[in-house]
C-alpha cells in the first residue's frame, strides 16, 4: 500500500484530490484569480520539492494547506493582509466560547451572495479558520496545523469569525477589508 515516499505517483495520489479545495482556498486568500493560480502552482512546487520531508501517515491535507497559507503570507498580498490587520493579542488567547441565543445565530437565512459579500468584507486573517472548518471540514487539530496555532486558539478564532460574520450580516459592523485589492 505504501509507496515510496518522494515518488511522483504517491505525490499525485495524495495531492490531486486536494487540488480543487486548494484552489478555492487560494482564491479566498488572494482574492484574485491569477494570484490564486500562482499560489497553487507554487504550493505544488514546494510540496513536491519537500515531499521527502513529509512524514507518511500524518496529515497530508494539513501539510498542503499549511504550505499554501505560508506561501500566501510571504507574498505581497499576504504581507499586506497581515499588516492591514493587526491581530489583537487578546483575541489570540483561548477565550471561552460564550452562549448565544439561537436568534443571534440566524446566519442561515442569509443568501449565498450576502454571505459571500460578508466573507469578502472580512480581512483574510478573520475568515480563514471558519473557511477551513466549515468549507474544508477540517478538524480543529488539522486547522491548528495549517495555521500553526494551538487548538484552543483555533476554537476561539472560529467562534470569533462566526460572530463577525453574523455581525456583518446584521449590518452591525462593517469591517475594513484588509484583502480588498486596490
Amino acid at each position, binding site marked *: 500500500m505504501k509507496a515510496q515516499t518522494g515518488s*511522483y*505517483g504517491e*505525490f*499525485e495520489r495524495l*495531492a*490531486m*484530490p486536494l*487540488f*480543487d479545495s486548494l*484552489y*478555492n482556498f487560494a*482564491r*479566498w486568500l488572494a482574492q484574485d*484569480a491569477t494570484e*490564486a*493560480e500562482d499560489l*497553487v*502552482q507554487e504550493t*505544488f*512546487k514546494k510540496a*513536491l520539492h519537500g515531499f521527502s520531508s513529509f512524514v507518511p501517515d500524518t496529515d497530508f491535507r494539513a501539510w498542503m494547506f499549511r504550505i499554501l497559507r505560508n506561501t500566501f503570507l510571504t507574498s505581497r498580498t499576504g504581507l499586506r493582509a497581515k499588516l492591514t490587520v493587526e491581530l489583537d493579542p487578546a483575541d489570540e488567547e483561548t477565550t*471561552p*466560547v*460564550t*452562549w*448565544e*441565543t*439561537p436568534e443571534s*445565530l*440566524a*446566519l*442561515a437565512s*442569509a443568501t*449565498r451572495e450576502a*454571505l*459571500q459579500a460578508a*466573507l469578502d468584507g472580512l480581512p483574510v486573517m478573520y475568515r480563514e479558520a*471558519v*473557511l477551513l*472548518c*466549515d*468549507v474544508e*471540514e477540517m*478538524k*480543529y487539530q488539522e486547522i491548528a496545523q495549517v495555521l500553526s496555532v494551538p487548538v484552543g486558539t483555533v*476554537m476561539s478564532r*472560529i*467562534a470569533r469569525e*462566526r460572530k463577525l*460574520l*453574523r455581525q456583518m450580516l446584521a449590518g452591525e459592523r462593517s469591517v475594513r477589508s484588509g484583502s480588498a485589492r486596490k
Partner: protein
Amino acid sequence: MTNCSTWQGRVASYVDAELPLPEMEAFREHLATCPDCASTALALMESKMAVRRAGNRYAAPPELRANMLHFAKGEPAVAHNAAGRDREGYRNFTARHWTGWALATAALLLLAAGLFVAANRRQSAKAVAEFADLHVTALASANPVEVVSTDRHTVKPWFQGRIPFTFDLPDLQATPFTLVGGRVAYFHQEPGAHLVFGYQRHFISVFIFRDTPQLAMPASFFADNTSSFTLRTWTQQGLRYVILGDANAAAIASLTELLQHAR
C-alpha cells in the same frame, strides 16, 4: 443528566463534531430534552451549511488542473487537457452538490432526532440518530457512493462478497425514482448496504442490514411538517430496511412500496 450550562459552551464543538464520542452521545441525548440547546445547535448547523455553500465559490480553471496533474506526475505541463475538465465537473457534483444537501439534511435530522426522543424510547432514538449520522456522513463525503450506477443489475452484484446477504432491487423504470449508487455501510461493526436514490431534487438513503435487536425502531417517523424529514423501517426476510431522506412522506412511502415488492 448533565446540567444544561455545562453543554452551552460546547454546542459549537458538538456541531463541528469535535467532542469525544461519549460526549457526542451524551449531548445528543441532552438535545432531546433541551429545546434551548437543540435550537442553538440547529441554528449553528444551519449557519455552517450556509458558510459552506458560500465558501465553495471558486472553481479552478481546467488548464491549471491539467498542469498540476502533469507536474505531479513529473511530466512537462501542457496548455490544455480535456480530461481535466471532466474531472472538474465531477468533483463539482460530488463534493459541492452533495455536501450542501447533506448538511441541510443534517440540520433537519438533528431537529428530528430531538423531537423524536422527546416522545419515544431511547434505544430506538439512538438507532434513528445513528442512521441519520450514516446518511449524512456518507453524503457529505467526497465519494458518497462507491459504486456509481443507475443500473440495479450493476449495483446488486457489486455488493456480493462485500456484505453477508443479498437483496433485491426494484425496477425503477416508469417511476419518479432513480438509483444513484451504493456503498457498504457499517452499523455496530456489521456491514450492510447503503443505497442512494434520487427523487426530484432530493436524495433518499436506503440501508439494508441483517436484523438485530439493536435495529429496533418505530415503523415510521416524521418530523414536523416544515422539515418534511421522513424515516421508515421494516423487516423483510430477516433483513432490516431503513429508508430516510428529506423527500416528502408520500415519496418515501412510494419507494418503500417498490422496495417491498422488489424481486
